[in-house]
């Protein structure tokens, strides 16, 4: 019976084959390979050998990871603040505009910075921080504030702050669009009722908008968690992790373990750990931020 159905459905399986072959070879295989090899010594030459949890034990005494972890905590905390507060405020400001057309144009204008390639924006910030030619030090010199001029990326006490400040005023188009779409979905009668009751804007935001936008906040938090942990490209470009340990993050160290040292097994162990952190964090957020709107 089932067999007959399977035979009859041959065509369906055949049509799905391209998707599944790609997923099998380029997603499932590396995912399992990564998890397996996290428990092996695996280097550029020779086969991998099983070493149990040695790699994970070694991570505890790795100074790069110790510094990387505390840097990551600071960076992630800042990333959450940047992804949640400015985009939400801008979405609220646009939501206040009364005319539909004006809202539409404002929304489009705030998406425009996204048309510049990410790498170009990162390199522009690299230039803004340039000690001699950069916008920051040039402008400070122009204002005769020479004592404020700093080696923004070269000074270990300042470098992390400089990386966090990148992208000021941090209106991520992604988060902002998600929030604005959420606001636009609030049933108009709720807003009207609040207006008739004479509710102030601040009260409306606190008691209506934020509770109604729980699914949007949840999505932005999860996307930020993932991005914050795995996007080490910006740090690779800006400081390469330096000076010293000042801006190292675990993902960057994983990359260097692979490329500079060919410690593939150890790199996989770092990757698996970061994956576990992301997964646990995401599930926790989904658990804690249940909303009445979910069904």
């Amino acid at each position, binding site marked *: 019976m089932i067999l007959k*159905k399977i035979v009859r459905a041959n065509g369906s399986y055949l049509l799905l084959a391209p998707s599944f072959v*790609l997923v099998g070879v380029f997603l499932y295989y590396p995912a399992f390979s*990564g998890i397996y090899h996290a428990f092996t010594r695996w280097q550029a030459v020779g086969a991998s050998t099983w070493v149990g949890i040695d790699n994970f034990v070694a991570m505890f005494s790795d100074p790069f990871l110790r510094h990387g972890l505390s840097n990551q905590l600071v960076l992630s905390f800042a990333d959450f603040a940047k992804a949640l507060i400015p985009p939400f405020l801008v979405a609220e400001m646009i939501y206040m505009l009364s005319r539909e057309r004006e809202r539409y144009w404002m*929304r489009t204008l705030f998406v425009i910075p*996204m048309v510049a390639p990410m790498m170009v924006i990162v390199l522009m910030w690299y230039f803004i921080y340039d000690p001699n030619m950069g916008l920051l030090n040039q402008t400070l010199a122009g204002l005769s504030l020479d004592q404020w001029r700093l080696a923004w990326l070269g000074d270990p006490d300042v470098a992390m702050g400089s990386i966090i400040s990148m992208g000021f005023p941090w209106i991520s188009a992604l988060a902002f669009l998600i929030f604005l779409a959420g606001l636009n979905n609030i049933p108009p009668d709720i807003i009207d009722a609040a207006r008739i009751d004479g509710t102030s804007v601040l009260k409306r935001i606190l008691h209506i908008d934020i509770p109604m936008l729980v699914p949007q906040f949840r999505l932005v938090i999860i996307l930020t968690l993932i991005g914050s942990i795995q996007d080490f490209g910006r740090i690779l470009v800006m400081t390469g992790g330096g000076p010293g340990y000042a801006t190292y993050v675990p993902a960057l160290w994983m990359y260097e373990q692979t490329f500079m040292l060919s410690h593939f097994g150890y790199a996989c162990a770092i990757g698996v750990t970061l994956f576990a952190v992301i997964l646990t964090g995401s599930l926790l957020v989904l658990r804690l931020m249940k909303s009445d709107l979910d069904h």
Partner: protein
Amino acid sequence: MKTKQLLLVRLGLYFLLVLSLLPVIMMVLLSLKNNVEIITDFWAWPETIRWDNYAAAFSSVKGSIFNSLFVALVSCAGIVFLSSLSGFVFARHSFPGKELLFALLIGLIMIPQILLLVPLFIEVKRMGITNTYWALIFPYLAGGQLVGILLCRGFFSTIPKELFESARIDGASEFQVYSRIVLPISMPILTTVAIINFHGIYNDFVWPLMVLQRQELKTFAVAIFDLSTVYRSEYGLTFAAYAIGSLPLVIVLLAGMKYFVRGITEGGLKA
């Protein structure tokens, strides 16, 4: 809302907008200057506009822009094809194990790149496809189709059955149903999938940096990183190169802004 309050909100929005665009404004301004003009008066408009920066920059980045465009366009075409095909099968066919297979695909959306980076790099190396475009295209196809399949399945399920049945009664083959009916009516959703992926692929940096070492294959994001860290002496020229490399994304996103915005707001929440 009082008009005075509204005016403040508007002023605030324009102020934030200018701040957000500052790097882009600076890029265009400095791309028209030479080093001396940048040092002596950073913010001034250049006395003679140096268009030759653009000519020189174009010859140094045109190869890498072509590489990025080629990889992005081939990948997007493949992603659109796979998303619509598999989305169609999941929405319209019934076969044993359908929901399990669907879950096996869509569950992968939860797997972050960081887990795959190292093992995929080794795998691609052993397959001998590093330093070929395939090292980019295959993983982009595998990952990019997932959200596409999810969106397409959702969309195709909303189309009334009668549309397909009447076509079949008219003697259309399964492939004709797919190419003559499914593809045309799903253009908006497929455009959305294509634009979101184009944006992601054009911006990708770490993966191309890992798998392409040969100069003539490098994508724009990697080549521009080399250009500005290794040969940074002529700033005006470097900024002109940034501006030229931004053009493909500017054109695609401005032309498809509606789809891009929809992709972010809908794709994100569904996934």
